[in-house]
């Protein structure tokens, strides 16, 4: 190329003028203050960068900064908590910047497995839930607060009992007999979230009908954010544990700047959302006598014993006990959180302490949480970062029996309204005999079952910057749980050899979960337009479970309490115990000494982006675990993903409507390793012996092929921001297939075995669509209104059943739920209820073959069962609105589900089935009485075969729209509070579940079956049996920052 002199001159002139222009837009010193838009508090530690340069500074403790920038330049404010915001200088020399936490920002930083990513460039499907969802609310635990917060996340609080289980499903249920719960990871460390209470039937299961929630120990105020990894691109890095999704919990970190001390306190009251309408004493007695007449007996005369009761009793019209009132109460809540957050440019810290004391809506139910957390980060050198996070939480849960186990369950069943609470002599009614257990829940509630836990999370980590691009992080995490359960049974509730004798038991569980992650992160430009972000590493995880327990043998009586008299073998006795008893072997030590398992994992991930708009991702994990058979020790879980930021293409770049548009897709393999320990091994267990020799039997056969359940996940999504990002959101479609499900596969009994654990050809598909829309409706100086809607539809379908075509072969056995090809998991299998014969008053069902109406009998019930009901909602979600006007703020969250039905498994007994021994629901008043009566309730009988009266009559639509949370607050103006040396103060009123719209006439439409195994939790959760009510609450809170 030839360059002429003329051209050179031209260039010189241009350079000269450009120099002039530099002079024209001179470098100015700009000072400013950055505040948090929510509370107006200074935002310290925010990085301020001049866009396009390396000039940068950080805001100090007052949120102030000084930086030199061109007057036409742009400043970029960024931090983990506030995301990224650009502000044009526009010639100003002082700026007041208000930053908003980054929930709706496309530039927000999202925590993913072993690292973070910028939302804009993510190719996976991840929902982030900000801490405001679970702080300053009365939510009993952070997971319960997730309801309605994220698409694809189905959250059901089992009931209103404190410390009780929350059922969470990410994109549906994809297992039958293994856990369907997601993997929880706290600050990078997977932690065990199983219910560790004594198993059903162990004799130690104080509240066997109600699972506890191990997540309830965590102080939700310590959590900065929660990320839900839903698709393979995001979750497959957790390999064999990712099939049910992954929930990442990140705790709060320190911030450099002035130490902020914050006190959050909330107090309030709660009550049950709705009371189940039941008969009163007179009504019960009237129907009872009517049933006698219908059965061809004479009605009972005065002073005649009511036959069939566990004790002899004559009806007394003066007695009318409302047992639900006796077993429920107004609850109360008091929680105080004190935290301190601060640091300098080298060391930052977050300290917190919590005290929570809660009294539940069920009599006797209490929950207490005391905990503390220390999170410290230190920049040891330019190359080395150190960090430690320690959280210790102690809980004490006074649990109460529910469902079939008594308490509120008995109040809606065996406790008849004609029974008094107390005998004339002041003792509990029913305790005069040894059969009181279920007829007097008040007496039974004097027993105690206290579950104490101490949970410690500790994570020590070091990150070494090897080069500018390459760093190495090593972390060791410890998750320790010590749980102690004590039961005490009152003497009058427990008889032995015709003597009232108390008993106590104790059980201790220790879980030691140690995790070590080591990984390299590499970040660099590849060529002029490419960027690579790669991670490679390995992890070792060991999980040890140990339990030991002591309890009185089946009928005997004893304690493990040194204050009681010591009998033979150093065992302790109630002083009342007859000598004959103390000579026996009263206390049984029980428990599986130790279960050990773990994972050895190798993982790698590479995200590549080209021209900042073409995105490619790849990840793979190899997981080895002693849970898998020798032939399948290691599983490999790859995932690929791609994305395209279309809005950065020329044709959209100038669009006024579309600011951001990304299409992303992913496919990958995941696994479910929550299959239990040692199941592939041939094991020998103690067995009955013969002629003085102890026996040993083959308890299980070796299955070296046994492996994880396999998941295949496909995801396609669009993320968008419209109208200057006033409206943003995303739509995702997914298909999740799980196969090779682990089941106790039936084998011919002539093998000597009933079944063996095997991966069988049972496939379940979850397919769905998720929509989330965030809108900043109005943003003015004084008034702000934002809305967020998420709505999800998940179709669950069993595709193959390994040849077990008869629905009874894969019987989930709870609540008449089944696994039937072509239907959702947990499909009900029942005859269709037609009505009541107006002539005879008997229940009619539809005959399968002919469609005719025939009377319901045990035989016709079995012969005419068909798949019926809808265990899965057609859609569910949440709708949230927040308003701020000057100092006032109002937020409310509606949650909803639509189209699903429950099978009320106890209704058949509560509405006519067990009139002779249970109280009945008020529906029974509409019973058929004489020929010609048109009603849905058949005539009352004492001889009805209730166990064989299953039908679609007990299916109920539980669609609901519920005001899950409402929060109204006022931030006291800074000029007022500053006089008291307070930086900010907010008072608020928070209420939960105060409005519910539903057709369901039972307790509450948010209901799941009691559960004590995975099968029931996965497949029978829509078949509640004597459920417990939910709670609603109203609370007053205050949040003060010094």
């Amino acid at each position, binding site marked *: 190329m030839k360059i002429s002199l003329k051209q050179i001159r031209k260039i010189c002139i241009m350079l000269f003028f450009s120099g002039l222009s530099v002079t024209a837009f001179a470098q100015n010193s700009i000072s400013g203050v950055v505040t948090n838009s929510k509370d107006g508090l200074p935002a310290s530690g925010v990085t301020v960068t001049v866009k396009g340069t390396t000039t940068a500074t950080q805001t100090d403790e007052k949120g102030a900064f000084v930086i030199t920038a061109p007057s036409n330049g742009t400043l970029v404010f960024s931090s983990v908590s506030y995301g990224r915001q650009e502000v044009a200088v526009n010639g100003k020399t002082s700026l007041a910047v208000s930053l908003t936490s980054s929930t709706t920002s496309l530039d927000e930083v999202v925590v993913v497995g072993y690292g973070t990513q910028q939302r804009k460039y993510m190719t996976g499907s991840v929902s982030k839930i900000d801490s405001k969802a679970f702080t300053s609310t009365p939510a009993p635990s952070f997971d319960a607060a997730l309801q309605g917060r994220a698409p694809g996340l189905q959250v059901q609080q089992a009931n209103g009992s404190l410390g009780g289980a929350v059922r969470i499903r990410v994109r549906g249920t994809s297992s039958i007999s293994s856990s369907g719960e997601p993997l929880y990871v706290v600050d990078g460390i997977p932690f065990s979230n199983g219910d560790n209470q004594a198993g059903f039937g162990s004799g130690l299961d104080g509240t066997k009908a109600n699972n506890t929630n191990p997540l309830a120990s965590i102080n939700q105020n310590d959590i900065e954010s929660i990320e839900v990894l839903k698709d393979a691109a995001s979750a497959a890095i957790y390999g064999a544990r990712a099939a049910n999704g992954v929930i990442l919990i990140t705790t709060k970190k320190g911030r450099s700047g002035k130490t902020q001390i914050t006190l959050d306190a909330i107090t309030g009251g709660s009550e049950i959302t709705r009371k189940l309408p039941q008969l009163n004493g007179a009504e019960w007695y009237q129907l009872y006598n009517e049933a006698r007449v219908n059965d061809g007996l004479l009605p009972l005369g005065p002073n005649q014993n009511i036959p069939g009761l566990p004790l002899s009793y004559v009806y007394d019209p003066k007695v009318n006990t409302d047992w639900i009132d006796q077993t429920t109460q107004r609850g109360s809540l008091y929680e105080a959180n004190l935290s301190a957050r601060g640091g300098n440019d080298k060391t930052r810290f977050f300290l917190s302490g919590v005290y929570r004391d809660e009294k539940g809506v069920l009599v006797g139910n209490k929950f207490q949480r005391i905990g503390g957390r220390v999170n410290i980060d230190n920049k040891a050198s330019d190359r080395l970062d150190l960090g430690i996070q320690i959280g210790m939480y102690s809980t004490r849960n006074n649990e109460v029996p529910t469902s079939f186990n008594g308490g509120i369950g008995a109040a809606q069943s065996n406790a008849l309204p004609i029974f008094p609470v107390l005998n004339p002599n002041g003792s509990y009614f029913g305790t005069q005999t040894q059969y009181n257990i279920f007829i007097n829940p008040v007496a039974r509630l004097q027993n105690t079952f206290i579950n104490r836990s101490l949970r410690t999370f500790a994570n020590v980590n070091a990150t070494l910057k090897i080069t500018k691009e390459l760093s190495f992080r090593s972390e060791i995490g410890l998750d320790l749980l010590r749980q102690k359960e004590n039961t005490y049974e009152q003497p009058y509730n427990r008889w032995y050899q015709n003597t009232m004798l108390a008993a106590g038991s104790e059980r201790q569980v220790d879980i030691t979960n140690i995790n070590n992650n080591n990984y390299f992160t590499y970040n660099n430009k590849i060529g002029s337009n490419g960027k690579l972000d790669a991670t490679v590493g390995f992890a*070792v995880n060991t999980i040890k479970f140990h339990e030991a327990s002591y309890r009185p043998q089946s009928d005997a009586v004893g304690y493990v309490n040194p204050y009681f008299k010591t009998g033979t073998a150093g065992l302790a006795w109630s002083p009342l115990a007859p000598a004959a008893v103390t000579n026996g072997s009263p206390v049984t030590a029980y428990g599986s000494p130790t279960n050990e398992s773990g994972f050895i994992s190798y993982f790698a991930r590479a995200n590549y982006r080209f021209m900042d708009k073409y995105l490619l991702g790849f990840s793979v994990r190899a997981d080895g675990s002693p849970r898998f058979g020798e032939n399948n020790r290691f599983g490999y879980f790859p995932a690929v993903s791609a994305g395209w930021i279309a809005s950065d293409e020329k044709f959209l770049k100038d669009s006024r409507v579309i600011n951001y548009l990304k299409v992303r897709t992913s496919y990958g393999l995941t696994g479910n390793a929550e299959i239990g320990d040692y199941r592939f091994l041939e094991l020998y*267990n103690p067995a*009955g*012996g013969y002629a003085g020799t102890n*026996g*040993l039997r083959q308890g299980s056969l070796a299955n070296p092929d046994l492996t994880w359940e396999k998941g295949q996940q496909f995801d396609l999504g669009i993320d968008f921001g419209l109208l200057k990002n006033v409206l943003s959101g995303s739509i995702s479609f997914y298909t999740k297939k799980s196969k090779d499900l682990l089941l106790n596969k039936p084998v011919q*009994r002539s093998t000597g075995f009933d079944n063996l654990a095997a991966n069988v050809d049972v496939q379940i598909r979850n397919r769905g669509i998720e929509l989330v829309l965030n809108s900043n409706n109005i943003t003015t100086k004084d008034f702000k209104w934002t809305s967020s809607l998420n709505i999800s539809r998940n179709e669950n379908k069993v595709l193959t059943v390994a040849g077990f075509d008869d629905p009874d072969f894969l019987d989930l056995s709870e609540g008449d739920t089944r696994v039937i090809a072509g239907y959702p998991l947990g499909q009900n299998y029942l005859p269709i209820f037609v009505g009541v014969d107006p002539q005879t008053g008997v229940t009619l069902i539809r005959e399968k073959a002919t469609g005719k109406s025939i009377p319901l009998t045990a035989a016709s019930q079995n012969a005419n069962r068909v798949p019926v009901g809808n265990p899965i909602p057609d859609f569910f979600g949440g709708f949230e609105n927040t308003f701020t006007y000057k100092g006032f703020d109002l937020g409310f969250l509606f949650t909803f589900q639509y189209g699903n039905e429950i099978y009320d498994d106890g209704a058949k007994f509560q509405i006519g089935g067990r009139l002779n021994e249970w109280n009945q629901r008020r529906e029974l008043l509409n019973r058929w009485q004489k020929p010609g009566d048109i009603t849905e309730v058949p005539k009352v009988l004492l001889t009805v075969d209730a166990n064989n009266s299953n039908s679609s009559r007990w299916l109920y639509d539980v669609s609901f729209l519920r005001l899950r949370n409402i929060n109204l607050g006022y931030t006291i103006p800074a000029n007022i509070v500053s006089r008291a040396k307070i930086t900010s103060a907010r008072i608020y009123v928070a209420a939960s579940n105060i409005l519910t719209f539903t057709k369901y006439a039972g307790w509450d439409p948010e209901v799941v079956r009691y559960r004590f195994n995975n099968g029931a939790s996965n497949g029978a959760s829509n078949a509640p049996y004597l459920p417990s009510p939910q709670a609603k609450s109203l609370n007053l809170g205050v949040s003060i920052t010094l």
Partner: protein
Amino acid sequence: MKKILILTFFAAMIFSIGCKKVLDQIPGDAQPGDEVLKTSANVYAILAASYERFTNNDFMGGNFTKTSELYGDQINFVNVTGGAEVQFTQRGFSSFNSIGRSLWFTGYEAIARANVVVKALAENNYTDITDSTKKTWNGEALFIRGVSHFELTRLFAKPYTSNPTVDYGIVVRQKALSATEAQVAVQRNTVKESYDAAIADLKLAEALLPAFNGGARATKWAAKAYLARIYFNMADYVNAFAYANDVINNSGYSLGTDVTIPFKSVGNQVVPTPGVIMMILGDAGTQRGSFWNSDLNNTYLPLSSTIFSTINARGGTRATTLTTSSTNPVRGISTKWSQLGASVGINVPLIRLSEMYLIRAEARVQNGGFTDATVRADYNAVRAVAGVSADVTTTGAAALLTAIRTERVVEFFTEGDGYHELRRLKLNIRGIAYNDAIGLLKIPDGEVRANLNMVQN
């Protein structure tokens, strides 16, 4: 940089050493299979667990006898109005029948455990036990396996006297199974194959077992006696005679002098109970009185009036000490299985010497070439114990057979013998043909659900 790489290398080394430990875990409350079978004491414990199943109330310790009686015609069904038992009166069986389930499940658990013992002894050389001990254990396992096959076949299949090469017997299981093998669908073998399997096992057991093996474990003589029972049941009178004769002449057992002795034994047996070739130990769980319900006036399964009068007609101590009668209504009751105390498990005679005498007596007649007096001598020996005067008059095959069979009824009432006799003799049972499948329990659901092609009764 170098340092880092070296450190990483070392970390990886330590890590890979740790791997094996993480991946190989065994539970604390159970023993893994490959370790268990290395110890002889464990094999003995598995044998004990096999005995436990075999002698359990659900199998040979109770349900075998009860089921045989419910099948047959020697009891009064008046009190059988519900539960699993009622299906015997209606001859309408369900695969869910709890009696059928417990027999099948328990019997096959005994077999499966016996198979493990046989496999362990074949595959391991235990240096701490003598060869004769090994032989004994092996013989005991084979005995349990053989008898279990035979008795399950008798309860779940058509009789040998029908069409043994065509009729379906049971599933023959003579091998300890792997998980893969256990999942293979296996069809029922024929009746003949089922009997052959039992005979083969018992012949091996006969050669391996000692003459005495404690009072309540399998012996050579128990194996021989069972072979006599099997051959007799097959109507193979030549072999039946040979085995019965061998036991009577060479075992050294005596018939004893008191008919009640075999039914009143409690606790571990050190010496053989007079009259009993093999006794099985009862424990508190095998209170046989609980199902026979020998509570007077409330007896669940009283004797049929026919058999009660047959017993009384014969007279002697069997009528006076082993039966009684309720008063209102008057019904004969067997006291063979009466409870001895609240929680005392009585021992159960598995096979008695008197059966050998009656088998030999009938086999002599069936085989021909007998003398009347030798035949009479055999059943007179049984009568003598019961205080019944000797028969010196009966002559001729037909009359002798009648006398022997009547003696059998009187000797073995409520011991589960009558039904199998009816089938051996191809006689109708309560109105239906001896080989009609309608009279049989169904193969239980637990067997069929994993093999839907299983031939059902």
